[in-house]
């Protein structure tokens, strides 16, 4: 059975559910602390996940201290070797501060996850959003390989989730788009509230050129089960939840499952 390593930093708070949904998808998973580099390098994994949370209490800026940790040298090396790496929310912030995404020059900081920009409000925002994959994402990115192009909902919960790039890089970044924010019917988001944080090009997830590293702000592990979908949600997933029996609500997968199923397929899980 393939194995994924979930890296826990001080302040991570989504490691258990992330490890659990990986196991539910047919991938063995183990949680490694940030200072267990020896244990991790002795048990190389087939994929790596940096879970959500507030690593190092978001001190200085979100993700920056974790990106300096020695264990990230190892993750960096594995990413360069083509292993799938996923950063969810705070994990995405760590990946962008590590220079793994967009990764034009790996190790160089070439993008930012800046504070949310929304009319009349600042700071932390928790809600559901609709997403659709970027043009090259399904073909290139293991994590997104099971998506079919339709809009699907996932929850977000962050204060610093606005993807920003230098003006001269804006064209280049288009081929790195993993997921974009959209309306429930799949049209491009036109600002708040469909784009919840002011991300340029409505970017919700960004990958490296090879597609094996994905930094995503939404939380697929918090929507792995159908029971996690809000009953009043619009569209397909809301209808599915409302029209399912109690047993199905408890047992059926939710929209986030497809991210982990994509990895399972990539790793050959039957």
């Amino acid at each position, binding site marked *: 059975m393939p194995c994924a390593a979930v890296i826990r930093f001080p302040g991570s708070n989504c490691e258990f559910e992330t490890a659990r949904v990986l196991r539910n998808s047919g991938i063995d998973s183990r949680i490694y602390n940030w200072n267990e580099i020896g244990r991790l390098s002795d048990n190389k994994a087939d994929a790596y996940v940096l879970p959500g949370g507030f690593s*190092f*209490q978001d*001190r*200085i*800026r979100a993700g*920056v*201290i974790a*990106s*300096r940790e020695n264990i*990230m040298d190892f993750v*960096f090396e594995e990413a360069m070797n083509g292993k799938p790496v996923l950063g969810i929310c705070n994990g995405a912030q760590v990946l962008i*501060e*590590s*220079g793994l995404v967009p990764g034009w020059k790996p*190790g*160089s*900081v*070439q*993008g*930012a996850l*800046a*504070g*949310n*920009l*929304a009319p*009349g*409000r*600042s*700071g932390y925002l928790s809600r559901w959003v609709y997403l659709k994959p970027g043009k090259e994402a399904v073909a290139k990115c293991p994590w997104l390989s099971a998506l079919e192009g339709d809009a699907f909902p996932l929850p977000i919960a962050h204060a610093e989730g606005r993807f*920003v*790039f*230098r003006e001269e890089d804006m064209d280049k970044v288009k081929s790195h788009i993993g997921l974009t924010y959209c309306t429930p019917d799949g049209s491009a988001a036109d600002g708040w509230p469909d784009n919840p944080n*002011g991300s340029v090009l409505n970017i919700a997830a960004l990958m490296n050129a090879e597609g094996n590293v994905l930094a995503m702000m939404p939380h697929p592990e918090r929507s792995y089960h159908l029971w996690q979908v809000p009953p009043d949600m619009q569209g397909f997933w809301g209808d599915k939840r409302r029209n399912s029996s109690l047993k199905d609500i408890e047992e059926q997968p939710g929209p986030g499952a497809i991210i982990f199923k994509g990895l399972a397929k990539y790793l050959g899980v039957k």
Partner: protein
Amino acid sequence: MEKVQIAVRLITPDPAAVTALNTVKAMRLQMPPLKIHRYDLWEFETAEGGRKTISEVVDHFTDIVNPNKQTWIFAEEGTVLTAEDSELQWVGIVIRDYEDSVSGNWTGLLKRRGFPVDSVRWGVLWRLGYLKNTDEALARKMALDLAVSQTRTGGLFSNPVSQEVSFWI
């Protein structure tokens, strides 16, 4: 129009500053700063009243200064701030987001509440304390190198894609 700056700091040691110092130590620089302090730096442009207006703002909104855990002073560039060791060569760097909703929202809020404030700009002031006999130009260069994260292992305090850095002498 009068520009007024205030520096706000925690009464207790600032955990972000402690972490910053530990991270800088781990970077094994030739001459790391010996002390680091962190302040929220608020810059107000007042239509009238200057410091008196800002004192009223600070008294009114505990979001800017929470008196249970923070203290503040009017901060003029070049002054030695309270609680700083005068035996060190201090360099101040200010980190501000190119676009931040905090500044815009506070500007709107203060105007709606009738305070004669034209604009608010929020940032973080990092004060880096180098050895006293360090050449001032060298200290500034070292502080600037630390201020900008160009790579995963170089620089720390700002992300150059979304933030700007300036000296606060």
